[in-house]
């Protein structure tokens, strides 16, 4: 693993330190000794093969899950040591774009975006109306405000969800696989939106994904996860020049390498000949 | 607008519920004055109350005027004492009134029959807390059969 010196890392919004996490009473270890720093005002990409628990990482940052060891600090607060009220208060400063969009199916796009404002601000309805229209404009869905989520295409739903995520002007946005299952055009739109929003609103973004090509174009800093820990990190340019076989395999999408193609199993001969069932 | 319609529907729903309760309360259930209304209490001692229970009706000529509110044993000889709660509407019983424990039909529930006594200048009216002394106990089937057999033997 190569250590990269980078002055931008000094001002970190999220600091993950020595994290151990396992699902369901230690049966399935997800992270061992995971450490990460997410610089303020930048787009940080977290990449890794499917099933590595990238979504779990976001849930840990949002304190929906609790680690067995280690700490996660958001803006100087250890998120797992806050009481409920402070945690809910802190969550207003971050938002998460879920893979499915997670729009509330029983309200219109407009009401979905107005929801966090109505819930958390005491603003009068006229001001909320203005904010909602501006957020919709930012994602290009002002014309779709009276549609129900079920009437939106996948790409539009994700954009609407993005508008909702930025409704309260958070400091941090967590993107969970924002590119998964999108056609090339809506993928391009979302890539552009993430970049623009980050720049114009002064956000910090964490993008969890396995779509390398897209994210390498917008990320300021990249972490690669494999085998329960960080196996490489650096700016996209630094990573492309890396000669670490794992990073190389991942960035170039090779089928077999340090990350094996096969899920751990007995050898094919044994399986086919049934030696252990004989 | 949609939420207004929702509220309207829920309001109607609650009204239907209240109407159902009123229907059950007024049309199906016992609406006699005793459940609320003003009442007074009378007491009567019996030798045997048979199958009388609390809440059994007290009737005059078949009309319910009150209910048994309490049954207890009193005195050195443990005599059954029945407390009756009677509607204030019927407060003109004289102290010559008698009570008996009767059965409605062959297999029916037992109830208290109140037979109003005569009224003239010499009698007083029963008031709250008074005792009725002229009582007739319940007929117990076994006793009847016993008497019948005993009577047969004597013949």
């Amino acid at each position, binding site marked *: 693993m190569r250590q990269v010196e980078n002055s931008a890392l000094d001002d970190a919004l999220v600091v993950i330190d020595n994290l151990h996490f396992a699902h369901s009473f230690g049966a399935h270890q997800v992270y061992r000794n995971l450490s990460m720093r997410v610089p303020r005002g930048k787009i940080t990409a977290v990449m890794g093969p499917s099933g590595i628990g990238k979504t779990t990482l976001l849930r840990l940052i*949002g304190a929906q899950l609790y680690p067995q060891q280690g700490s996660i600090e958001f803006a100087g607060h250890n998120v797992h040591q806050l009481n409920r009220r402070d945690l809910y208060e802190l969550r207003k400063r971050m938002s*998460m774009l*879920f893979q499915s969009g997670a729009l509330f199916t029983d309200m219109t796009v407009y009401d979905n975006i107005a929801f966090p404002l109505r819930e958390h601000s005491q603003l009068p309805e006229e001001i909320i109306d203005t904010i909602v229209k501006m957020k919709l404009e930012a994602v290009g869905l002002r014309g779709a405000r009276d549609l129900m989520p079920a009437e939106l295409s996948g790409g539009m739903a994700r954009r609407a969800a993005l508008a909702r995520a930025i409704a309260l002007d958070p400091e941090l946005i967590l993107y969970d696989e924002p590119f998964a299952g999108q056609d090339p055009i809506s993928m391009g739109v979302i890539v552009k939106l993430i970049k623009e929003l980050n720049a114009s609103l002064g956000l910090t973004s964490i993008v969890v994904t396995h779509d390398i090509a897209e994210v390498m174009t917008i990320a300021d800093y990249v972490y690669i996860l494999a085998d329960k820990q960080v196996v490489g990190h650096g700016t996209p340019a630094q990573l492309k020049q890396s000669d670490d076989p794992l990073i190389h395999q991942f960035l170039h999408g090779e089928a077999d390498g340090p990350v094996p193609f096969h899920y751990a199993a007995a050898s094919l001969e044994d399986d086919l000949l049934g030696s252990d069932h004989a | 607008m949609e939420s207004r319609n*929702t509220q309207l529907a829920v309001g109607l729903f609650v009204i239907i*519920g209240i109407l159902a309760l009123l229907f059950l309360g007024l049309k199906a259930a016992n*609406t006699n004055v005793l459940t609320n209304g003003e009442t007074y209490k009378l007491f009567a001692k019996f030798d045997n109350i048979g199958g009388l229970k609390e809440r059994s009706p007290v009737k005059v000529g078949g009309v319910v005027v009150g209910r048994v509110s309490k049954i207890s044993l009193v005195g050195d000889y443990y005599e059954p004492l029945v407390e009756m709660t009677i509607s204030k509407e019927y407060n003109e019983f004289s102290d010559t009134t008698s009570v008996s424990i009767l059965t409605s039909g062959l297999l029916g529930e037992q109830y208290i029959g109140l037979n109003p006594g005569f009224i003239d200048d010499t009698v007083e009216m029963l008031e709250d807390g008074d005792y009725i002394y002229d009582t007739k106990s319940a007929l117990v089937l076994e006793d009847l059969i016993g008497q019948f057999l005993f009577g047969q033997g004597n013949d």
Partner: protein
Amino acid sequence: MLNRVAALGKVTLDAIAGAGAALFMLMRALFGKPQLRKSWPLLMQQMYSVGVLSLLIIVVSGLFIGMVLGLQGYTILVDFGAEQSLGPMVALSLLRELGPVVTALLFAGRAGSALTAEIGLMKATEQLSSLEMMGVDPLRRVISPRFWAGFYSMPILALVFSAVGIYGGYLVGVRWLGVDDGAFWSVMQSNVEWGQDILNGVIKSLVFAFVVTWIALHKGYQCTPTSVGISRATTSTVVTASLAVLGLDFVLTALMFG
């Protein structure tokens, strides 16, 4: 052998953990800081989908069950020359038992399963997580209004059921089979008590409402967020809630009328 014991231990632990989680969920949903301005419209909406939309099935079933009671009761009672007791028979069986119990069973099937599926789906589509990440407690926003809606709706539905059922019994007994109109109502009135029958029926249906809604919400909230998980949770809601209602009904009947 040891494996069996271990399996039993695991089942027991899971059951205790499940009950604890259910209790915890309910506590947090109900004893949060109430926000009347926000929760009133939510309650209205849920009363609509849980209560108003269940009205039709309740009215139709109530009518038919009342009619069947009228018919069956008449054929039995007429043998004893006691057909004038048809009124109290219909009214008492509805008010004491069938009203609360059948309503609860229908409610579990109609509204309970819908609640479980809705919440399960909200979980599967990450809407619950999304609420949490927005700093909105899903227990208070999603669970609590649904719970109260179920709790208030079911007694109303049970009353409607009993009223319609008595009317159904009246239709068959009096209008069709010719039991005396006056006797039908007056014998009913002299046998049905406010406290003993109507109030106890309402108490029963409040208990059932509590249990059925709780089970439905808990099953939805704890379900595995996949299509199989949701369908299992929905089935489990109907089965568990129905069994709980029947079991509790016995206990309550023993306490009230025993």
